[in-house]
């Protein structure tokens, strides 16, 4: 069983907050800033009685993500699993009904992860024109301040890669993209910003993405693109799927 889940179950069944557990155990086994730093073992935790979260060890890269896709396809077929939802090098399983023995699901996840081969999803490639900065990129200056790079350097680094859609989430049609240059990483905002328009291109930590509709966000919005990502009338409602590729082209930079 994963040490994480073990600790959570232990903490709750004893009813203890800490008093019954040695302090060095608390301090010594937690790897949080970068769960992947622990190197070898996946991290598995419960989201109440509704879901379980599997976090892969290692870097946030395409190889890991391809194994996450494979794990998701497999776990989606397990009894009692409502949905397998890939995230960024992680996978959430939601339950039809909460399993009485979550430990067996934990074991199944470990086994399936060990066995998971890289699943290559060959998707389409789409170019999205972006207007960087100005009213639609209100936090570009914060990324400048954090990275010490100039606006031009940030835009150049952001529009250079061919990004892969790793997962969808956040809101209908939103794509989490892999492949951002870590030099333009910037921490999520202390307080989420309300009422951002759809098409917002943003950076959150080492990730980047494009919002599909207006709403709140805790990421740094650096630009804007006009594109419709979601049509609820379709059986497959999202325009992008994991494995698709996106390139941002620089339409304009507003300083």
């Amino acid at each position, binding site marked *: 069983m994963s040490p*994480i889940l073990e*600790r*959570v*179950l232990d*903490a*709750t*069944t004893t*009813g203890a*907050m*800490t008093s019954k557990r040695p302090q060095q155990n608390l301090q010594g086994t*937690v790897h*949080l*800033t*970068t*769960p992947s730093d622990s190197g070898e073992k996946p991290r598995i*935790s*419960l*989201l*109440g*009685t*509704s*879901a379980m*979260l599997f*976090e892969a060890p290692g870097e*946030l890269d395409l190889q890991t993500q391809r194994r996450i896709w494979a794990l998701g396809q497999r776990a989606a077929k397990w009894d009692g699993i*409502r*949905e397998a*939802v890939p*995230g960024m*090098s*992680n*996978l*959430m399983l*939601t339950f039809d009904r*909460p399993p009485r023995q979550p430990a067996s699901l934990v074991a199944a996840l470990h086994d399936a992860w060990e066995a998971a081969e890289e699943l290559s999803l060959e998707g389409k490639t789409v170019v999205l024109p972006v207007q960087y900065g100005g009213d639609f990129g209100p936090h570009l200056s914060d990324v400048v301040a954090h990275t010490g790079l100039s606006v031009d350097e940030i835009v150049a680094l952001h529009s250079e890669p061919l990004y892969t859609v790793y*997962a*969808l*989430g*956040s*809101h*209908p*049609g*939103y794509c*989490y993209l892999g492949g951002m240059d870590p030099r333009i990483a910037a*921490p*999520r905002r*202390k*307080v*989420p910003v309300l009422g951002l328009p759809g098409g917002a291109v943003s950076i959150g*930590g080492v*990730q980047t993405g494009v919002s*599909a*509709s*207006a709403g709140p966000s*805790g990421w740094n919005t650096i630009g804007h693109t006009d594109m419709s990502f*979601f049509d*609820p009338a379709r059986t*497959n*409602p*999202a325009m992008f799927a994991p494995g698709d590729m996106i390139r941002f082209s620089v339409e304009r930079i507003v300083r």
Partner: protein
Amino acid sequence: MIEVLSNAALATIQDQGRQGYLRYGVGTSGAMDRVALAIGNLMLGNPDDAAGIEIPLFPFRVRFTQDTAFALTGADCSARLGERPVLPWWTLQAKKDDVLTIGVPASGARCYLLLKGGVDVPVVLGSRSTQLRGEFGGFLGRQLKKGDVVQAAAVEPVHGETINDLAGFGITPPSWTLGELETSPVADPADTVVRVLPAGEYEAYEQDSIEAFWRESWKVTPQSDRYGYRLGGPVLVSKRPVEMRSHGIVPGVIQVPPSGQPIIQLRDAQPSGGYPKIGTVVEADLWRLAQARIGSKLRFVQTSYEEAVDAQDELDRYMTKLRNLVGLHRGTRP
């Protein structure tokens, strides 16, 4: 079937929620108080997946454009049908042109208006619930406004069933039957107590913060809605900065943004996020949370996974019992 007479915003069409589209970025939506919605449907003999109207702002007024049975559940509203008082958790028969006024609740935050047959809006991606962020589902993908006419699904009359079989009875509120939860130290009676299971980053927090999390009352701030409740209380401090990769989350997850003030994700929440999670309010208690008002206080009581599953089973047994009681009540009517 009914025409909305008030300007009260924020009322939406909701059912038990939209399942199976999280991987497209589509959250579940659905009633904040799923128990109240389910009970209303039971009382009217509606299908379990029927939709009703969730009302969080009062007074709310509608006019019936034809005769129909309806039910009011959820918050303890002072409602009137014309001049007649309507008790909460009650079902009644309305006549064409009757005006129903739902007043400010004595307790609770959200009232559910259910119509015989259920609200008739198209099923989008498996649900009639309003997806506000995606602007689909529910009534044209938006909140109701003055002048909207909401239809109920046509109902085939069941042989031998008269309209009186459907209306004119009430049930005991679930908070009476299921009871309030106990805390230590003892909570103020006005506080809403919910059970919380520690989540993935629980141990990332300083000991003082963890103790404060369980001990203190948390104020539901005005920036609280169907997306989530932003809470006010002691600042929760992590041992070092925590930056997570984006991952799936579910309603009930308590995230802690860098401000240290927790946010409980609720029915309209994003299906994914990256803030660290200190705990999750268990599914069996989300209906309690739904009825906590802005300005009121919450208390968290630590639970185990086993206890949380038991709590869900208890809630299911309660619903089954209620279903049998309502069936029995119908059966004894002449």
